[in-house]
């Protein structure tokens, strides 16, 4: 299976707040803090095909990293914000054994659309989405885009090779 090849993309993070799974408001730019490594994907909880494998890959990445999981923040942004309330995201995280480093975000429809547009993944129909993962090394403002289903091994290596800690 061909692994997705990371390519740099220009992402201009919008200034807005989303809601985390614990119901608190979360400023996007703070969640995606430039000092920390970030792995980010877009999912929705009722998705049947692409999202469960993507969530499983994040879950497996956590496991692979072991103690080094503290070096990275995993972020999953819902693209179905009205359905994916914080409570539903909490249940989704529990389903995949999300640890404290894995943040699930939802928000208003317009805010989530702005985030998707910033990462150039916006589709008018959520059923049109595909498997994409983004990586931002620690201390960097550059985002790398991995189109296709990344492997946990690949993502874990991005983190460990980034020299963070």
């Amino acid at each position, binding site marked *: 299976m061909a692994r997705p090849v990371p390519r740099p993309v220009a992402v201009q993070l919008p200034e807005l707040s989303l809601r985390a799974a614990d*119901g608190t408001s979360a400023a996007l730019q703070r969640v995606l803090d430039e000092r920390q490594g970030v792995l980010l994907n877009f999912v929705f909880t*009722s998705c049947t095909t692409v999202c469960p494998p993507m969530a499983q890959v994040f879950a497996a990445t956590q496991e692979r990293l072991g103690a080094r999981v503290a070096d990275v923040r995993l972020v999953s942004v819902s693209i179905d914000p009205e359905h994916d309330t914080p409570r539903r995201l909490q249940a989704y995280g529990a389903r995949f054994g999300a640890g404290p480093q894995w943040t699930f975000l939802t928000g208003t429809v317009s805010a989530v659309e702005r985030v998707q547009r910033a990462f150039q993944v916006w589709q008018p129909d959520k059923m049109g989405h595909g498997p994409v993962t983004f990586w931002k090394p620690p201390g960097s403002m550059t985002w790398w885009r991995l189109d296709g289903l990344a492997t946990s091994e690949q993502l874990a290596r991005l983190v460990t090779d980034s020299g963070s800690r």
Partner: protein
Amino acid sequence: MSRLARTLAGGAGVLGLAWACAAAGAPAYGDGDGDALLGRQLYREGLSAAGQPVQARRPDGSTLSGAEAACVTCHRPSGLGGTEGVTQVPPITARYLMSTGRPPPGERPRTAPGVRREEQRIHRRTAYDLRSLQRALASGLGSDDQPLSPLMPRYALDERQVRDLVAYLAQLDRFPTDGVSGDVLHLGTVVAGDVPAAERASFEQTLRRCLEVGSPPGTPLEPRRPASSGPPADPPHPSAFPTRWQLHVWTLEGDPSSWLSQLAAHAARQPVFALVSGYSPWTWRPVQAFCEARQLPCVLPMTAAVDADAPSDWTFHFHRGVSLEAALADEFLREQRARRPTGSPGTARVLQWVDAREASRLGAAALERLSAHGEFSVETWVWPRDAGIARQGVASLQPGDAQVAWLSAAALTDLAAQSNPAPGVLTLASTELAGPAAGFNALEGWSDGLRWLHAFDEPRRAMARQAHNVRAWLRPEDAADPRRIRQTGHAVTACAVTARALRLLAREWPAPPVRLLEHLEASEEAATATAFPRFTLGPGQRVGSRGGWLLQQGPAPGVLVPVGDWRVPDGPFIADAKPDPRPVR
């Protein structure tokens, strides 16, 4: 005949399947020695015969087990798969799996000079048998010796388990075809007997006209008189999707406790494939219970009486009606409570008014349940029974307390005339029960603390947009009537969404009713005439709009404006639908 076919062919229940398999050019597979119940457990829950989670892994080495590894997750309850983005999940019921892949009948791919089109793999692979299926599940190599999708997990199943699985996949090919008679597809709609005649006539006319537009050309929608009493003898799985769609209007009269038997009588006279829309503003639970019990797709009725706790695997709603209003009220009241100064008196009182309508009582009951958090206590009073003590009851409310009105416009006006809440007492009123909010002026004496629970778009914006989108369907005399505009828009939407899903179903016919649900989940693009700011569905989702506004009197008379943002209450948590089709044995 292959080894698997020899093993599985024959036995009870083949009759219904035989036609379907013949249509696909495949041998028939019966139960054989596989246990379809155990296969179902494997397919739907990812559990082995011993009840243990099955283990699987993906090519990248990630592991999954149990429900995460269950086939239903990707291949859907119908077994017919689907498409998400560029990811295609192939159909895997026995008639597909055990026959050579082929393009869907009637598919004519576009061609261009100099471009050679290669047929998709799933359309040209060889048929599976037990051995090749077991190998595919274990190693990820398909019947054509090519690797399966990297999304497809690999399972260590023994031959017994694969036989069980195939027995269930064969069962998925057996399904009822109620409502299909030769080339006629029978569709139903439900209208409550107490709906005014003019509204009923307008609703029926809209639905018939809309289905004519959505159905194949030349479809007459007037039902033909049945040739004899009793259910017609429908042949199982007709060879082509019916091109003639007939709409049957089921009128339900009298006490709703008799509706279930009335529905059964209607269905016995003429079975239908699905119920499209429906109009019963204040009671719907018997119809929903009927749809769930009969596994009958029930699409977007117009009703406020939505019980968020009732099973809804086969029923789609525009929104959660009074259940949503109750959630909006609960959230707003808790916010108000949180803003009170520290040291304010204990639990706030919430006095709610209900009348005899089921929708009113559902809303009140939902708020009572939500108040279990204890941040306020709820007392429920009945209008007009308690009208005599309304003045005293409302006067007993203190600043920080609230009243919630699940009443008609007339009852609200009476209540407002008889009571005058103290300053600082909040009044929340249901627009579902009082009517489209655009038609309201401030209620005398209540205006300062009055908020409307409003589960639609902002009144003026929604009305203007809906009126524009349904202008072709509106009679001139209804063009400025907010109530008629909303009804027409929602009847047209229910029809358009259903028609689109039926056209998708036609491309893979014969297909079970549960497949219609799966297409309905992906038909939101046809919902162009709702009164909501947005309407979206998705796998397992049964409600199109999930939020609402709190409205208050605006600066101009008769204009209601939002208080704050569109709200999507975070609860009650409603699990995604998991329809489990009953097989025809």
